[in-house]
């Protein structure tokens, strides 16, 4: 990611421009993520209201926990290489034309808004879909907005040290980007382990809950 939105990194040639660009990126990123969470939470609430109005009930108690747990388990296994699962996205990447057309501030805003939504670029981690599922089945728009907002904030705040690091390592960027911090397989394995812990906890919670 740091490599692909190098546009924000390149602005480190002027500290003020860099700071403004990354701040605009961050605001847009968090805002878009909050809105995504809110939309998922509202959809979940609407689904609950519709089911209640129609008199529909889940076939067994704590179905939400089973749903999140099984999804987490499936995506953890998939991320560990057991079998492939779909990772739906709307686009594969953010267009470089935005940078050429609206650099630096407009592009920073556009990149932030697009990346904050998550599914506008490649998603190599099943954890994203599990978080979306939690927001949906929870049916609480405010909680969902906070959770997705945390995703957006993490994406935004990492840009500050990362782009500054890219500036500091500008003489040997390739070596820096080859360090373990940017290792996709390593990150996928660790995230799969966290996902597996969530899956075990959710499934057991579904069993233990009264």
């Amino acid at each position, binding site marked *: 990611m740091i490599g692909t939105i190098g546009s924000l990194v390149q602005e480190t040639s002027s500290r003020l421009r860099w700071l403004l660009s990354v701040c605009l990126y961050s605001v847009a990123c968090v805002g878009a993520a909050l809105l995504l969470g809110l939309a998922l939470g509202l959809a979940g609430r609407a689904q609950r209201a519709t089911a209640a109005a129609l008199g529909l009930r889940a076939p067994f108690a704590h179905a939400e926990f089973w749903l999140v747990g099984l999804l987490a388990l499936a995506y953890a296994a998939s991320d560990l290489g057991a079998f492939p699962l779909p990772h739906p996205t709307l686009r594969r990447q953010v267009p470089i034309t935005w940078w050429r057309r609206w650099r630096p501030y407009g592009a920073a805003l556009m990149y932030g808004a697009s990346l904050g939504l998550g599914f506008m670029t490649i998603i190599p981690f099943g954890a994203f879909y599990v978080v979306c599922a*939690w927001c949906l089945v929870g049916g609480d728009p405010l909680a969902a907005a906070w959770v997705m907002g945390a*995703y957006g904030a993490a994406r935004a705040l990492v840009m500050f040290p990362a782009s500054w690091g890219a500036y500091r390592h500008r003489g040997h960027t390739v070596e820096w980007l080859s360090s373990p911090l940017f290792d996709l397989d390593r990150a996928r394995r660790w995230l799969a382990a966290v*996902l597996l812990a969530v*899956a075990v906890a959710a499934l057991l919670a579904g069993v*233990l809950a009264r």
Partner: protein
Amino acid sequence: MIAVNTRSRALPLVAGAVAGGLVLAVPLAANSRQAPTGAVWFVVALALALLTGVAKTTTV
């Protein structure tokens, strides 16, 4: 050979994850009386979202 090495690296992670999940299950179960939006569930989802965001930004 590569697959064997990957598995050997993944095994401790899987074992740790299962152990972590077992520990996490008790407070989650106590928190699961209604929707999965109780305090413990919220913290777990928040942590997962944060980790996903950091991993996504640094790697892809």
